[in-house]
């Protein structure tokens, strides 16, 4: 399982396993894109990508070559509240990887030409994402649900905002972010305590000690009414539909009740949402519901993708199903079924050292209740139909909804608007909009 140590004042989590000759190294930061200035969305991610474009005697090309030669990968995930840099390496090359990682995070050089090259690459990648309809729907959904809150701001930025970022700001952001007090380290896989402690000590010693950046933010505020965000794209034969609202927060007393209720509604192949949309009517390849877990209250989302000719009916039925769930709740046998599913399939949440490490890191980075994962099974087993029904009624009323759809405005918008009862507002967003 996992063990926690304090090294150089920073929490270090170990999740060892000798099953494969691979090691994962995760450097977590307790800060993320919430610090992006208005008009400079994408800044934090830009900084994280920039640090591997030159460091302590290594050019960008040297770093890329070195990573490949070591049999290593380095990935960056930036969230509003936190950040993960994850490296995976053949275990025989761990020491060399740690040396390279230390240079990258502690002594990046931010070469001007590389920063401009990276900026142009990021802008080109942003434009490329317009090909992905599901991504377009999710982007519109977040915009509708969170508005100006940090969860509504785009972590990858916009063409305009990336163009506005001053490289000098990246250096300052790096200095503030990579301090020992802002870092949490994790090692999983083929690494023992001695090796992990030595690696952690060397890496953390290279970072300064300083107060961490202040990055807290409030919960998002619920919007009243039902709001449609329609992404207009030519020649669509299918809608990508995201329907939802603010969800549950891990510190809510009924959070696990809500989670079980959402899984019972749309979290499995045989759940009612999937059954009604896919199995009975053949309207979509899939239909699912999920509850996001984040540092602050995040979203509850229903997703489906019907052909445009049945899109309005599918949207209407999705809303009706949520309404009906609030009215009638669950039967005990349905919740018993989901309890069994969640308890028994939990084995697959913890079947690799990397997943176990991820759970332990989440508790720190998302500031989850300390027993969120360790007490998860018992909490799930304690959920009854009454509790799950009450939680869904309380947290997921269908009165306030955001509906995001990708379609072709002239052909599909009017029918979709007509199908959504009590629609408060409609916003049409061109698929190639920039902000």
């Amino acid at each position, binding site marked *: 399982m996992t063990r926690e140590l304090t090294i150089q004042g920073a929490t270090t989590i170990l999740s060892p396993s000798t099953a494969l000759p691979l090691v994962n190294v995760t450097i977590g930061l307790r800060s993320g894109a919430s610090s992006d200035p208005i008009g400079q969305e994408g800044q934090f991610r830009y900084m994280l990508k920039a640090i591997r474009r030159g460091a302590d005697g290594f050019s960008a090309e040297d770093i890329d070559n070195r990573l490949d030669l070591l049999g290593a990968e380095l990935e960056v995930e930036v969230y509003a509240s936190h950040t993960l840099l994850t490296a995976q390496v053949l275990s025989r090359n761990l020491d060399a990887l740690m040396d390279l990682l230390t240079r990258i995070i502690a002594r990046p050089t931010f070469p001007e030409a590389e920063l401009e090259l990276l900026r142009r690459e990021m802008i080109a990648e942003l434009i490329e994402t317009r090909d992905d309809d599901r991504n377009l729907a999710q982007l519109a959904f977040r915009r509708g649900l969170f508005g100006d809150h940090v969860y509504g701001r785009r972590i990858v930025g916009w063409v305009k905002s990336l163009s506005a970022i001053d490289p000098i700001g990246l250096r300052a952001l790096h200095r503030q972010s990579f301090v020992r007090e802002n870092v949490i380290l994790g090692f999983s896989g083929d690494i023992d305590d001695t090796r992990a402690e030595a690696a952690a000590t060397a890496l953390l010693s290279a970072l300064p000690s300083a107060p961490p950046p202040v990055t807290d933010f409030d919960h998002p505020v619920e919007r009243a009414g039902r709001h449609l965000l329609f992404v207009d794209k030519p020649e669509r034969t299918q809608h990508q539909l995201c329907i939802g609202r603010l969800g549950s927060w891990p510190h809510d007393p009924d959070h696990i009740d809500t989670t079980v209720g959402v899984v019972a509604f749309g979290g499995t192949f045989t759940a009612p949402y999937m059954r009604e949309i896919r199995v009975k009517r053949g309207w979509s390849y899939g239909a699912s519901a999920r509850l996001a877990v984040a540092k602050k209250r995040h979203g509850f989302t229903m997703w489906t993708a019907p052909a445009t000719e049945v899109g309005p009916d599918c949207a209407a039925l999705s809303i009706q199903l949520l309404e009906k769930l609030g009215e009638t709740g669950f039967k005990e046998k349905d919740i018993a079924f989901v309890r069994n599913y969640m308890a028994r*399939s939990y084995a697959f949440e913890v079947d690799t050292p990397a997943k176990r490490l991820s759970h332990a890191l989440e508790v720190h980075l998302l500031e989850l209740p300390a027993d969120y994962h360790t007490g998860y099974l018992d909490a799930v087993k304690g959920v009854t139909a009454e509790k799950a029904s009450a939680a869904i009624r309380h947290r997921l009323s269908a009165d306030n909804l955001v509906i995001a759809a990708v379609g072709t405005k002239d052909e599909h918008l009017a029918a979709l608007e007509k199908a959504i009862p009590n629609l408060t507002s409609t916003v049409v967003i061109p698929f190639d909009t920039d902000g």
Partner: protein
Amino acid sequence: MASQPSTDTPAVTRSKAVRGAVPEGWKHLETIPFAGGTVERYELTHNGLTVLFHRDTQAPVFSYHTWFRVGSRHEKPGKTGLAHLFEHLMFNETENLAAGEFDRKLEENGAESNAATWVDWTFYHASLPRERLALVAKLEAERMSQLVLREPQVASEKDVVANERRQRVDDDVEGAASELLYKTAFSKHPYGWPTIGWMEDIQGFEPADCEAFYRTYYAPNNATVVVCGDLKVQDVLTKLKVAYGHIPPSEIPAEDYQPEPPQTEARLAILKKPTSGPKLLLGFRGPSMGDPEHAALTLLSEVLFGGRASRLHKLLVTEKECVTELRGWVSTFRDPGLFDMLFAIRDGHTLEEVHALVLAELGRAKTDLVTSDELERAKARLELGLLQTLDTANGRAEQIGFYETVLGDPAAPFRRLAAYRRTTPGELRAAARRYLLEEACSVVHVIPPDDAGDTDEAAATQKEPS
């Protein structure tokens, strides 16, 4: 716990030694070293069912895969997509289970399950806590032999698949372009039609088509069951015999398809779609997965496309800044496939410009040797990639099932790793010379409507294959 996979000394020696007593009705065929442990091959003598067992005690779970040697290559024109539609239908009603009950039983027991179909195979997988083996064996055996195919389920599932096609192909630029590339490259061989099927074919299926397909291909002697996890082999064999012992074998018909004739002229197809920018797809005729040169071409693909340090990434993304995204893949098919490539072109650059740069770089691979540093990087990347697939019981079962079904050798990933290690720069150059032939290349241009100008008629134009 099994010892750690030693990729330094690939395990390549097969043994026919029998390990322990083999339960009645089973024949132990061989012991194959795999990932620091073994794969044990058994056959149920009554009906020819092959079982491959790999013990993996990393977690108290197991993964159960059933691989059928049937895919879209076994379809006929006008009936494309049948193998994939059938995969969907396998989750429906059986003689003893009402519609939906199959999934319900699996989920209630904590299963993660799904299925996939491609050109050469179809497989079904479920991962469960270790004490649930008897349940999944019973369910899988039941649908292998007692599936019920009725009109309402077939009709509803056709609609589901049509929507899957819209999502993956019709409203997805890269999906549509890839489909057109294979259609353009293969004029005879079934690899030319999409596994999901043409829309008109999907909509035309009747229950009788599905019934005939089922009776022909879904039989124990056309399947391999892979069990991987924290289980004991005696228990596995005992439970599988109870589940499958009564199922008779089938007469599996000999394959009846047209091999693809050699390509002697370049082919061009144009696709007009709403897209963020033009895309260039190239498909060079490639080797089959069992071809000894497949490993060399895979390494060359890594040198050209593998990560930011690769040749084409450096040239097109970093130096010329004319491409946003690029990918290359040597198809892992039983018969010769493609070395296919995709380039997403940046604003201000043209298809022709990128095409010329790519051909020049591919030309360099035919004249100059790759450096030893480039080759070592490619080998390390592929070693990492293999190990990443082995981190769960499900990942291991998939590797075993895939290589068994395509190459008849569950340990082939380790043999390939050994082959990568032996491969020299000269062999990469030879592979480039053999396969990167402009006259054996199919090309797809994806053009946004605004750029298409007078090429309206090109919305789906394709020059006839020579």
